[in-house]
Structure formats: C-alpha cells, structure tokens
C-alpha cells in the first residue's frame, strides 16, 4: 500500500513511530480485556464502556514512553483508566444522576437480580455504594484477585492503607447486599 510521507518526516522518525505503534498494539491486545473490565467496574455505563476504553488507549499511546516499569503495566493502565473514568464522570454527572435515579425508580429494569445474567449488573450497581478510593482497591483486590501488596504498589499507596480500604470496602459491600436482600424480601412478601 502506498503511504504518503510528509517532507518533514525523516525515515528515523518514521521507524520510531512504527516501533511505538507496534508497542502500543502489543499492549492493547494483551490488556484490552483488563482495561475494558476495569472501566466497566469503575462505574461507566455499558453504552459508554467502548468509548472510554478507547480513550484510555489513546492516553496510553501518548504516555507509554513515560512508563518506567516501577509498577506492573497492568496497575499503570488501571491508574490511567481511573483518570479517564473520573473525567467521564465529571462531564456526564448530570446525565448519570438522572439515569441512576430512573434505574432506582424502575427497580433495575425489572430483572430478577439473582439470576446469573443479571447478577453482574447487580454487583456493578452495588459497587456504586463505595467511595472512589475504596472502589479502586476493591476492583483490583477482590475482582481482579491481586494481592494487597500489588494493589498498593499499583495505586501508589501504603500497603496498610490498601488493606484497610479493602476491609472497609468488603464491609460496605456486605451491608449493601444485606440491604438488597431485605428489600427483595419486602417485595416478595408484598
């Protein structure tokens, strides 16, 4: 295929760009699932997960040369995903608030919350009860199965802090499940 090369682009720069693109593609193919899952678990609605994941990799393309390997690539990507998700939330918070209010009003689209197909969505809904810093630890530690040390290293926090956040998040999640069960019992009784 004929490729147009601008007059300012030297062959050396072109080879650098090609190498960077190959590295980006390798990272993309290896970690796409993880980033997609993380974006979803950090609270982005299904319809926007693809867009946000795409933006995470756009940021990766810009920043990949700054990755120094002090943490694992996976947790570095998670940090970028957190920032992009925060940006997403900040700009769509009005819409999101209405969406969640509507979701509560109609009771999660009327699905049976304990069926396999809908259980994942219920979990994501329950994750909304966690503050952001606990949510990040919970997603990495509990859902991705990372150790507390890995979580702490990836999020650049003290291991003890990571552990206490994880413990607090577990407690909150159990309380949320208990509330959910109680609500289901009331609806079933009525």
């Amino acid at each position, binding site marked *: 295929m004929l490729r147009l090369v601008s007059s300012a682009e030297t062959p050396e720069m072109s080879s650098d760009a090609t190498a960077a693109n190959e590295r980006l593609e390798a990272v993309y193919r290896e970690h796409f699932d993880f980033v*997609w899952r993380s974006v979803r678990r950090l609270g982005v609605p299904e319809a926007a997960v693809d867009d946000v994941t795409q933006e995470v990799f756009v940021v990766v*393309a810009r920043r990949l040369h700054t990755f120094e390997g002090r943490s694992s690539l996976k947790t570095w990507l998670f940090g970028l995903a957190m920032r992009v998700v925060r940006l997403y939330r900040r700009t769509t918070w009005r819409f999101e608030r209405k969406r969640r209010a509507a979701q509560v009003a109609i009771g999660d689209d009327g699905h049976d919350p304990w069926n396999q197909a809908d259980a*994942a969505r219920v979990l994501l809904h329950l994750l909304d009860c966690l503050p952001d810093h606990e949510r990040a630890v919970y997603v990495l530690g509990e859902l991705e199965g990372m150790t507390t040390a890995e979580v702490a290293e990836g999020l650049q926090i003290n291991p003890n802090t990571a552990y206490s956040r994880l413990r607090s998040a577990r407690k909150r999640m159990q309380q949320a499940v208990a509330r959910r069960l109680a609500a289901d019992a009331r609806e079933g009784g009525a």
Partner: protein
Amino acid sequence: MSNEARRLEELIAAERAVGRPDGDAVERIWPRVQARVRGELPPPPFTRGGLRVVPAVVVAVVLALGAGAVGYAFGVGSEDAPSVITVATPPEEVPAPAAATRSHAEERRDAADAPSTPSNDAVGRDAVDAARATSRRDGNPTTGRRAAAKRPAAKAKHTGARAEDTPSELELVRNARAALARGQHRDALDWIARWREHSGRMLDEEARAIEAAGLCASGRTHAGLEAAAALRSAHPHSAHERLVQKHCPAQ
C-alpha cells in the same frame, strides 16, 4: 459464612464470568484508537469538557474576592469606604473637627506641599515622648521603646497623600478591644477617642463598654464608673456588661 457474604461471592463469580467484552470488541476498537492517535477522529464528547461546575465556581469566587479586595484597598466608589492601607493609622492623625471640614483637595495640596510626612513625624515625636515618659516611670529604657512600638500612634505606616482615609468603625473598635485584652489600656482609650471622631458610630454599646473598662483598668475608677453608668442607662441589657464588671469594681 454469612448469607450476605455468600451472596456477595455469587455476585462476584457472576461478574467474573459475564463481565468481559464481546468477541470482536478488540478488532472493532483498535482502528478507532489508531484514528484517534493520528487525529483523524474527533474525541468523544466527554473528553471535550463542558461546564466544569466546581472549577467555574472557584474561579468566580476568587475573581469576586479579588475585585472586592482591590475595591476595599483603594476605597473605590465611596469617600467613606474603609481602606486597608490606613488600618493602623494613629488616632492623632485624624484631623480635628474644624480641619475635617476642609475639602479633600485642600488636604491633598497641603500634603503635597509638605517636605516629608509631617503628620507621621509629629506622631512619631508624640510616641517617643510618651515612650520616654513610660521609660522614666519604669526605670527601664527598653520598656519605653517597646511601648512606643506597640502604641497605635507608632504604628503609622502610610500618611501624606492618603491621610484623609480613616479606618472603619469596626476596625477602630476591634483595635481598642485588642489593646484592652493586651492590657494596653491607654491605647484602648486612644482607639475609643478616635472612634468618637467617626461619623457612623454604630458600635456605640461595645465602644462605651471598652471605654469604661479601659478607664477602670487604667486607674481612673471614678471616670470608669461614670462611663459604666452611662452605658447601663443607654443599653440596660448590654451584652458587654461582663467586660465592664471584670475591670470596674462593684459599686
């Protein structure tokens, strides 16, 4: 394991099983990533910002405060506006009532004609004289200098062209109260004397209380008790009664 914990485990297992992208997502999104990197595709709407409510509010508040501070400092819009530049100007600088009737233009002309800051010099001399008197009384020369430095008359920093600016009534009363709290009763009375020159005098109750307390505390008990009686007649249920009682002996 409790029922909630077991349910939670089930939910997590379901999320791990179901929560993954569809089969062609990798191939579908990769061209879009490349196009975005090359700048051929516009960014999605959420990356373009929109109204950042919190930063916008912060910027608005900062601008408002900045404009207010500038207006406050330079007395914009009002002849009686308080000025931070002259907060610490001494009571002695306030022109006498007769002099106060002169126009601002005359005062500015006088200030411009003066060789240096005459009022400041005069104030400084007064302060030094008072300090020397204190020093002689205490037998300690440094005490006098310190007293002069802390006295309101010695605090003057800006005089001359802006000598007509006066501190607000609130600042005068606040300074008087602070001086009283520091035990500098004469200073407190000086500030109150200056407050009497003020045109507003909305803080009459507080100023009278400070005056009574200052008089009593400085040894002028009779005058202090008279001032306290005047306060009680003007403000029978004054909230500052405790301040007066603290310094003035019971009648």
